[in-house]
C-alpha cells in the first residue's frame, strides 16, 4: 500500500518494435526543437521584462517598430525547420505504411467492446494477441459496428478499424515481453475496457502456443468449406471456364476493372467483390454475381479471403516458373 505514491512515473514508454526506434528519434528531435524555442521565447521575454520594466511614470519607449531582415529571418528559419521535419516524418510514415513482403498475417475484428483476433492457422483469441519476436506481422482489421482503433503504444503503431472496410498496420517486435494494446477511437460505453495484451514470444514458444491452441481448422480450410456452401465454386471454376473468373493465382495481381481503373487484388477488393459485386466487375464477365452482404459475417469473410489467398498469389506463380 502506498507504493504508488512514491514510485516515480516513467517518462518513456517501452520501445519494442523496429518502428518504435525511428519514431522515437524523430520524437526526441521534435522535443529538442520545442525546448529550444520555448527557452528562447521565455528567456527573451523574461530578459525584456526585467531590462525594460517601467521605472517611472511617463517614461517613453524606444526601439524600432519594423525591421524587414529580422522578419524574413524568423519567417524563413521556421519554414526550413518545418521542411526538415515534414520530410523526415513523411519518409518514416511511408516506410511504416508498407508491410514487408514476407509478413505473417493476423486478422483482427473490433466490436463493441472487445477485440476478436484470429490467426491464419485457425487459433482464435479475445483481447490477447500472441506474436513471435523478430518477425514482421501484418494486422488486417475491420469492425463489426462502429469505428475502433487498434493501438499498441510500445510498437508506436495505431490504425482505425472501420466497418465495411479493411485497414492494416504492421510491426516487427524486437523485445520479448508483454505490452498493452488499446482501443484509441472512442466507441461507446465501455471504450476504456476495450484493452488487452500483446505477448511477444520466442518463435519456438510461439509455435508451441499455436499448437496448444484450441483450433479446429485453419482459416483457409474453413474458407474452402464456405466457398462450396455458398455456391461460389459453381461459377468460379479453377480452370477459368466458369461464368465467373478463376480465382487461382489472382491474389496480389493487378486487374483491370470494367471502369477502366486498375487495382491490385487485395483483401479490400475481394471484400468489395463479395458484398457489392458490381462495383468491381472485371471486364468480359457478365454482371450476374449476387451480393452476399448480410449473409456472410465478418469472420466468414476473412476465412473466404484466406482461402482465395491460399489459391496462390502472384509471387508463388513467378517463383514456380
Amino acid at each position: 500500500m502506498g507504493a504508488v505514491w512514491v514510485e516515480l512515473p516513467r517518462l518513456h514508454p517501452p520501445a519494442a518494435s523496429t518502428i518504435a526506434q525511428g519514431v522515437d528519434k524523430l520524437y526526441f528531435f521534435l522535443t529538442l526543437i520545442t525546448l529550444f524555442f520555448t527557452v528562447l521565447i521565455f528567456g527573451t521575454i523574461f530578459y525584456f521584462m526585467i531590462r525594460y520594466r517601467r521605472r517611472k511614470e511617463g517614461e517613453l519607449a524606444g526601439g524600432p517598430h519594423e525591421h524587414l531582415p529580422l522578419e524574413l529571418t524568423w519567417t524563413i528559419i521556421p519554414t526550413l525547420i518545418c521542411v526538415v521535419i515534414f520530410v523526415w516524418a513523411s519518409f518514416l510514415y511511408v516506410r511504416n505504411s508498407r508491410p514487408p513482403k514476407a509478413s505473417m498475417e493476423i486478422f483482427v475484428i473490433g466490436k463493441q467492446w472487445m477485440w476478436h483476433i484470429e490467426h491464419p492457422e485457425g487459433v482464435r483469441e479475445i483481447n490477447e494477441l500472441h506474436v513471435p519476436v523478430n518477425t514482421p506481422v501484418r494486422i488486417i482489421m475491420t469492425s463489426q459496428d462502429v469505428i475502433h482503433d487498434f493501438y499498441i503504444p510500445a510498437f508506436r503503431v495505431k490504425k482505425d478499424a472501420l466497418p465495411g472496410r479493411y485497414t492494416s498496420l504492421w510491426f516487427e517486435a524486437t523485445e520479448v515481453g508483454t505490452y498493452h494494446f488499446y482501443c484509441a477511437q472512442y466507441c461507446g460505453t465501455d471504450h476504456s475496457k476495450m484493452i488487452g495484451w500483446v505477448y511477444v514470444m520466442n518463435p519456438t514458444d510461439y509455435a508451441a502456443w499455436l499448437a496448444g491452441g484450441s483450433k479446429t481448422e485453419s482459416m483457409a480450410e474453413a474458407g474452402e468449406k464456405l466457398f462450396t456452401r455458398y455456391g461460389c465454386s459453381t461459377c468460379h471454376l479453377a480452370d477459368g471456364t466458369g461464368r465467373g473468373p478463376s480465382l487461382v493465382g489472382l491474389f496480389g495481381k493487378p486487374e483491370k476493372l470494367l471502369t477502366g481503373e486498375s487495382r491490385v487484388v487485395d483483401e479490400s477488393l475481394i471484400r468489395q467483390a463479395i458484398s457489392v459485386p458490381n462495383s468491381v466487375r472485371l471486364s468480359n464477365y457478365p454482371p450476374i454475381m449476387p451480393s452476399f452482404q448480410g449473409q456472410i459475417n465478418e469472420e466468414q469473410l476473412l476465412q473466404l479471403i484466406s482461402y482465395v489467398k491460399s489459391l496462390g498469389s502472384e509471387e508463388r506463380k513467378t517463383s514456380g516458373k
Partner: protein
Amino acid sequence: MAVHAVHGEHPPGFAHQFEDMDQQHDAGNLGMWLFLATEIMFFGGLFMSYIVYRTKFPDAFADGSRLLNVKFGAVNTGVLIASSLTMAMAIHSAQVGKKKPQVWYLIFTMILGALFLFLKFNFEWRADYHEHLIPGFGFMVRPEWGPGGVHVQMFFLFYFFMTGLHALHMIVGIGILTVLTVMAARGRFYEQYYAPLESSGLYWHFVDIIWIFLFPLLYLAGGRYPIPGVTH
C-alpha cells in the same frame, strides 16, 4: 445622389447607425452577398457529398437519374427562370420609380414560385412515393438495378434532400416576397430606397442558380439516351 442624414430629418428607410443612404445601401448589399456565400458553402457540403458518392457509384446514380421525370425537371427550370425575370423586373420598376408594376411583378414571381412547388410536390414527389423511391419512407430496391441496387437509394437520398432543401428555400422566399408585396403596395420603395427588394431579389436568383445546377446533376446525370439491353 448622397442623401446626408442629419439627426431629426431621416429620409424614409434610413437607419441611425449609418452616415448616409449610400453607405447603408452598400452595407446591405455586401451583407446579402456574404449571406449568399454562406449559402454556397451550406449547399456546397451537399454537392461535395454528391460528388463523392457519384464517383463511387456511377451506375447506380445513372439508374436513379433515369427514373426521374425529365419533362417536369425541364419545365420547372423554365418556370424558375421566368420567376427570376419577373423578380429582376420588380426591382427595375422600383429603380425607375414605378409603383404599380412593382406589385404586379412581385405577385407574378410568387405565382411562378408556387407553380414550381406545385409541380414538384404534386406530380413528382407524389409519384415517387407511390413508386417507393423515397428513402426512409418505404424505399424498395428493385431487382432490375442489379447487385448495386442498394446504392440507387443513395442517389434518391441526395435527390430528395437537395430538392427538399431547395424547396424549403423557395417557401422561405415566397414568404419574404409576400411581405415585400405588402410593403411595395404601401409605396415604401422608391428610387432612393429599395434595398429590401434588391436583397430579396439576390436571394431569389440564388435559389434559381441552385436549381440550375440541380437540374443537370439530378435529372441528366445518367444521360437520357436509350441504353442497349436495359429497358425501363
